[in-house]
């Protein structure tokens, strides 16, 4: 399996994508692959695992704040999918920290950067 030293970040276009927009830090931008989703609720466990299969270091799903999802319950659904994916990774013997869910509003650019940074740190600890 090829490894890709990147985190695939699936962003809800109403929140995560807008939060990621103003990010200019090249180190952050080069360490992620931003993928647009209409809503985090579109997330499937299969997509998360397939992304990891492709060799990505991690998968982050960024949706709206849980109770204020643009599509009412998308963030709730996504967070359940992420939990299932974590359970599956644990069952496989992989680091469940390779999947992460963030709930951000469209202006949370600093939180976006923080989340990516934190995830990288935890991934590095897990592999060291």
């Amino acid at each position, binding site marked *: 399996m090829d490894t*890709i030293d990147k985190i*695939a970040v699936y962003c809800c276009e109403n929140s995560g994508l*807008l939060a990621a*927009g103003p990010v*200019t830090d*090249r180190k952050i*931008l080069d360490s992620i*692959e931003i*993928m647009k*989703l*209409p*809503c985090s*609720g*579109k*997330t*499937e466990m*299969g*997509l998360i695992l*397939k*992304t990891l299969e*492709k060799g*990505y270091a991690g998968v982050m799903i960024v949706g709206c704040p849980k*109770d*204020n*999802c*643009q*599509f*009412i*319950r*998308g963030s709730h*659904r*996504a967070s359940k*999918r992420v939990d299932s994916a974590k359970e599956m990774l644990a069952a496989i013997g992989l680091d469940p920290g390779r999947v992460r869910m963030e709930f951000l509003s469209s202006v949370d650019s600093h939180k976006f950067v923080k989340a990516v940074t934190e995830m990288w740190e935890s991934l590095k600890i897990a592999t060291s």
Partner: protein
Amino acid sequence: MSADKDKTGVVLCNCGGRNFKKEEIKSLQTRLQFSSGENLFIQSDALCTKEGAASLKETMSKKGIKKLVFAGCTAKKSGETASFIAEKCRIAPSNILEVTVPAATPEGEKDSPFGMKEELIRSVVKGINKHIGILEGMETFATKKVPLHQGVLVVGGGSAAQAAADVLTGRGYSPILLEKEDELLSLQGQVGSFTATLSTGGGVKQADCGAVILASGFSREKDAWTSVTSRFASPHLVPLSKLADAAAELPRIPSGRSVGIVLDLDVDEGKASSETACRTALQLQRQDGLQVYLFCRDIRVGSLPLEELYDDARDRGVVIVKYENQIRISGTNGTTLLSCTDAVLGNPIQVACDLAGISLYGVAAGGDTRLSEITGVDLDSLGRLQGNNIHLFATGTNIPGIFVAGGCRGNVYPPEAEREGRAAAGEVDLLLSQKELKVELSEAKVDADKCALCLTCIRACPHNAMKINREESVAVSVPEVCQRCGICAGECPAKAITLPAYTDDILLAQLG
């Protein structure tokens, strides 16, 4: 679903030559990747003008381009220029993707505002190429027009409903006002073409309408009171609305009587409660020998008449206690004990009253489940119509074409309820005055061969966009209701549902 053969183009908005230098354009041009067809590279000036759009439209039709990557311009809000182009050039909105080209030169170097470094060019090229890939994997969407029935159903007989009906009438609509003794039995169809079954004085009838306003008032009184009596054993409690009458019945004694008013029992209440509480307190305090204690977590007096009422009550001797967290109510035969912690001083307070009135608006209790079941409109955690979601405020709901106002969504303060009624009417007018909805046919698609009709999508859709197609025994999404969130596709256990602009192929291809 395989992508069609329509060509994908790229347009760079150069804003009158201000965004890209010649050599930059050239550099970009050579690095763009198209999987098929001739390399399409269009540059254009001032795309946000009518003229610019018209010339782009011409080029596109000449080259047979139906899908477009648009790059450039940080001048306008994200997506604004893209949707302008989509409209003017007749591209389905999903078929135009935008790549932002961030300003590369530090501020202050005004002469070359967008001089691009190699690093930036690389990132722009990467962005454009990624979007070409997405569009090449995406079908070209057609649009359809859905007529909007001009009828409006307003459910409710109170001031919010009346205000909504008045506004609608004023704007030339003929709303059906469903008053208290009438009943909404069922609601079929969707935005633009609802069919309501109504029980009115004249019997059961059906009415067509394009939109619905739910303004049915506060329906939880009975449930709320049951909740209060089940929690507190004191025999000397009444709903706040009945406090004045009950207090009048109290036999007078020389040492005087005391009466308590409790607001915010489970949740903080609004101005309507403040007004009722202050008015009742004032009225009782004026009676001989009655001392009134008003308990609240916060009093909302954000309007002049309310402020005056509040001041008046205090001047007349009403004691107002702001409490923290929960208030405890216990009772013996003679009195009701109200105990709490003072929010300001932090000390415990206990007041013995002969009678206490509980405001029911602040009590968590069963909600308007019937209306929710009929319409599909979510209830919030307190059982009020309209889910607890910022995107729905003030008058929207999870169901396109259905709006809420007033008491049923928790606002019982008449001036505000009326304002909401008018606002909901405005929303309806904004919708229906279009006469028809232009709908891009990019809604969730169900593969009939795979669909097991397990109903998961129907249960999961937040907008009631998924229906059962009984003839074909398959689930189907209604394009004008579907919000393209893809939750159904995310849930479908048969992988029968795809959101055409976000198929697995499109998503996975981006990952390389």
